[in-house]
């Protein structure tokens, strides 16, 4: 079933609830065009991560539809859809029992069905592009949190995804490693890949986002370019949220 739109991703009236009663997403709709960089902000527990997971079929949808690349996402095509969407989690994206190189090679071999040699070549290039070639033989828990996230990004990119989802990619990091990960993300954003990032890094949203989405309590409250949403928020909830984040940042910078 093709949708009428030209959007890469189209989320329509999405409802998700856990344990059948607590509604985490209360009818969310979102369109993402090819090449767009969407940054999702909002308080913790607002449903941001659930939205990303729902897009990738990782949580059960109660109501609503998702179209990816013009095709409705169903249980029958979810495996294929997932292979075209990269996903970087806050933590534990990499498999701890594989080296960084094996982590990147593994999906190339098992999902893209490339040969060992070809996978190794692509994986090495991907690690090199994030400055981790010399760590190729290290295991995830032998490198820093920042290097782990960079490798996770490399693994996602090596699969040449049409859409990249990042769920608070810097939230679990020690402050000293946040910069290096954001730098990589800014670099790949410039290359034109479509991405949706859940983050609390407001500066990153300002620099990179084409659209900022503010989610609170399972609903999209505001959506628009950063120059509007971040600079002149309309809702009280967003004003409060932004002032809290900015205050935290000022305290941190002191």
């Amino acid at each position, binding site marked *: 079933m093709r949708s009428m739109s030209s959007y890469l991703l189209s989320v329509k009236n999405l409802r998700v609830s856990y344990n059948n009663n607590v509604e985490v997403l209360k009818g969310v709709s979102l369109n993402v065009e090819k090449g767009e960089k969407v940054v999702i902000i909002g308080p913790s527990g607002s449903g941001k991560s659930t939205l990303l*997971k729902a897009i*990738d*079929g*990782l949580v059960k949808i109660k109501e609503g539809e998702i179209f990816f690349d013009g095709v409705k996402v169903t249980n029958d095509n979810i*495996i*294929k*859809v*997932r*292979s*075209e*969407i*990269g*996903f970087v*989690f*806050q*933590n*534990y*994206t*990499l*498999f*701890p*029992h594989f080296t960084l190189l094996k982590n990147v090679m*593994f*999906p190339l071999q*098992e*999902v893209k069905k490339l040969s060992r040699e070809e996978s190794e070549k692509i994986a090495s290039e991907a690690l090199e592009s994030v400055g981790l070639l010399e760590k190729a033989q*290290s*295991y*995830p*828990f*032998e490198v820093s949190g920042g290097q782990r996230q960079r490798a996770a990004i490399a693994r996602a990119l090596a*699969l040449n995804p049409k859409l990249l989802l990042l769920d608070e990619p810097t939230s679990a990091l020690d402050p000293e490693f946040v910069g290096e990960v954001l730098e990589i993300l800014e670099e790949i954003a410039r290359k034109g890949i479509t991405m949706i990032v859940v983050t609390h890094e407001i500066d990153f949203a300002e620099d990179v986002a084409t659209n900022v989405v503010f989610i609170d309590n399972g609903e999209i409250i505001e959506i628009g370019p950063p120059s509007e949403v971040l600079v002149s928020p309309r809702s009280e909830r967003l004003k409060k949220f932004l002032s809290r984040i900015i205050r935290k940042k000022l305290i941190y910078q002191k």
Partner: protein
Amino acid sequence: MIDLGFLTSIFPYLIQGLVFTLELSVLGFILGFFLGVTLAVLRLSNDKLLSSISSLYIDLIRGTPLLVQILIIYFGLPSLGLYFDPITAGVLAIGLNSAAYQAEIIRSGIKSIPKENIESAQSLGLTDFKIYKFVVLPLAIRNVIPALTNELVTLVKDSSLVSVIGVAELTRRGEYIIAWTFRPFEVYLLVAMIYFVICYFLSKLSSKLEKVLAVPGFFSAKE
């Protein structure tokens, strides 16, 4: 009181029994492992029917004595036309029994894997089978090597129950010698010693295995 010459003379006979003891426990463990992995995966599956079948099996096996299970397989099943020689019946009984315990051990190992590791595997577009094969089971089993070793050691000792269906394993041979010589204390002591050495050796082997398989920088085995 303990006559070393006597013990030396019966040692080779007992060791032949040890071969059966190891055959029963190791083959039973391997059968139990593969069946246990299957049961654990079924128990965790979203399919309610498969999950309840697995739960029922585990409850039934854990709620009945191994001795009775051995008797049912060896003496009971022939009425259904299924005949096994004593060793096969013993391996089957131990394997089917151990599967229930190993299933619970492996299930706890699977539960201990960070949820994001599994979601990450799913998000790559891997099939469920590959997620289990490459990610879930390798991580889960690493987590439960000590508990699985415990199970193997228990089987080595519990395999003595198979003596009731006439397998001349270690304990049974001890009983034969006692019947001929009327020296229960020394014989049982030697039998116990042999069990102890085997179990001690298995525990050491497991610690080694745990270290070799430890995920570098993570879940690392304590020195």
